[in-house]
């Protein structure tokens, strides 16, 4: 018996300190959780505030004694805003412009990105450098020549580049194609070329191989590129305004800058802001996984 007792050199004194360390780590972790949720809440405050403000009455927003959460919820701001700036046509127009831009620019970028990933053609390096180079040309440099070029095309060939959806779609396609090429090139480079080669051995053309095999395989990349283009194009204000096209940001700009000379209607501004943000918020929340994975895929490797 005595031998058994001496042959078990357990150290009971260690147990409390390990337990204390565990408890301490749990407490630290819960405190960090709390900190995180506080930061998340602070980040969300502006969004809550604009939604609350869109349900306030006229003059209630600039009244310091009125409570932050409205006592009487006013639902009339939305229809009034809709009428006052003729929001419906603006909204439809924006959807048309941004939707076609997304389709066309993603298609162009997929073609070019595929070519850069698969072929070592003469000029490939120069071309990919030029693609990157377009990103560091500021808009303030080329917007006047761009406008005048578009005007010249309109006057010479009769193609309505200025003041029409067609012109602004051309503009946005040119805007968003380069960065999309850069995103998609990485996706196509990661796809194994075997499948396409087999298809081409079986008699498919290069384009069929691209369209039927590579494009579906690069689905997540295509999706994230499309969301990126949609979000950025929805955001674009300056060039749309310059070309005189009626998209949502341009309409809101006139409204915000008080073109009609009336005093600022903060309540209507809040309602408009909420309505503008809803389409991309919904799209983003639905396709968030693909978007994030697509965007970070190139950066993580």
């Amino acid at each position, binding site marked *: 018996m005595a031998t058994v007792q001496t042959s078990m050199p357990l150290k009971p004194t260690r147990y409390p300190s390990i337990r204390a360390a565990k408890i301490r780590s749990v407490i630290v972790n819960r405190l960090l959780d709390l900190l995180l949720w506080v930061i998340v809440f602070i980040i969300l405050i502006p969004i809550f505030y604009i939604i609350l403000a869109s349900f306030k009455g006229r003059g209630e927003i600039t009244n310091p004694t009125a409570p932050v959460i409205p006592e009487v919820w006013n639902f009339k701001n939305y229809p009034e805003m809709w009428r006052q700036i003729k929001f419906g046509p603006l909204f439809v127009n924006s959807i048309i412009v941004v939707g076609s831009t997304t389709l066309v620019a993603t298609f*162009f970028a997929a073609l070019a990105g595929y070519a850069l990933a698969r072929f070592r053609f003469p000029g490939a390096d120069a071309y990919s450098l030029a693609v990157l180079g377009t990103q560091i040309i*500021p808009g303030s440099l080329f917007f*006047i*020549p761009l406008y005048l070029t578009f005007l010249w095309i309109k006057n010479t060939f009769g193609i309505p580049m200025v003041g029409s959806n067609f012109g602004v779609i051309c503009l946005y*396609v040119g805007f968003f194609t380069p960065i999309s090429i850069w995103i998609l090139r990485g996706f196509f480079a990661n796809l194994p070329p075997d499948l396409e080669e087999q298809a081409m051995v079986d008699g498919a053309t290069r384009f069929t191989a691209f369209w039927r095999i590579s494009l579906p395989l690069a689905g997540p990349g295509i999706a994230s590129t499309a969301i990126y283009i949609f979000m950025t194009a929805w*955001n674009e204000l300056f060039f749309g305004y310059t070309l005189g096209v009626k998209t949502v*940001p341009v309409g809101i700009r006139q409204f915000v800058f008080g073109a009609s000379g009336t005093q600022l209607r903060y309540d209507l501004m809040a309602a408009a802001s909420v309505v503008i943000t809803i389409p991309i918020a919904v799209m*983003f929340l639905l396709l968030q996984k693909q978007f994030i994975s697509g965007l970070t895929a190139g950066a993580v490797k």
Partner: protein
Amino acid sequence: MDSRLMSLTKTLQQSMKPKAPRERRRNIFRRIFQHRMAYVFILPAVLAMLLIHIIPTVQALYMSLLDLNVRTLLQYLRAPFVGFAHYEKIIGGIVLGTGDANIKGLFQALINSFWFCLWLQIGTLGIGLILALLLNRKFWGRGLARTLVLLPWVVPTFVVGIVFQFIWLQRGGLANRFYLDFMTMVPDGFQTFLHTILTWLLTGMDKIFWFWEFNPKTIAWLLNPKPISWLIGPNARTALIIAGMWSGLPFPTVMLLANLQVIPQDLYEAASVDGANGWQRFRYITLPYLKPIMVITTMFGIIYNFFGFGPYNIATSMFNTALDLGKHVNLLLIVIVRQTFNNQLYGYGAAASVLMTLIALVAIGLFYWLFRSSMISE
């Protein structure tokens, strides 16, 4: 597919590829003809880029050498050629300090843009890093928190301006509500102290030694807290930076979080066994892994904040005007666009834009040169 089989196919393919010297000896035209499909594939993108970027930029470069203004606009590219006069005027005016009001405004805007970029980058990277580290742990509601953090991203930039205009309103704005409520809660002596600190922070965003330009007028407020006018004077700079930070935070957070997730966990275990504490594990494992993405995010940030239209949209809709925003918040792009349009000095505006691009290129090049080792290791 079995990995060994895959490596076998790869080796086979490589052995079947034509040898490099033979390819080099081949005629360039034959190579172009051989790859004709590639040119067909890039053709649409090339045409779009030519129409939108290349042709207008070449015109703009030539335009910056012309005296193109409201009188000569109709002649466009046949306007009087003045060579580098615009560049001389801008650079000389800034260096010698002899420029007219336009050039002074341009210089002020350059300084503003510099500080705006710097504070925004420090802020978004710092807060983004903290957020990414916090989000990378196991906790209840992780997926929800990760989604909510990204929400500012979907808010269009001109809406960000409107939202923050609401927050900074002098009467009834959220910031002043918080501020005044907070001030009524704290005791008098401490209140004075807080207001002093806040005033310093606000007035001194661009001064390294903040107290140099302490405004004596603020002493009058100290005794009796009044609503702060956030959008007037030096405060506007802070207001703009906070709005920009809110809008720019999700991108670095996502990027850092994605990179945190691929750090091998056994490194941390090994370090713990060797007795490294939390800070050492962060400093010697996490930070080196995150460095490349931090460098890349900063380069994107310079391009986006220095001459992107994001800050332009935020500022113009926050201040409800595209005209003069005051010397504290005039960013470079806003000033160039305004001077070009209002004074109709198109040649001058193009020259200013070219100089802005050169400055950004130098900044990016310098940054790349400083951190090239971490980019290459990636």
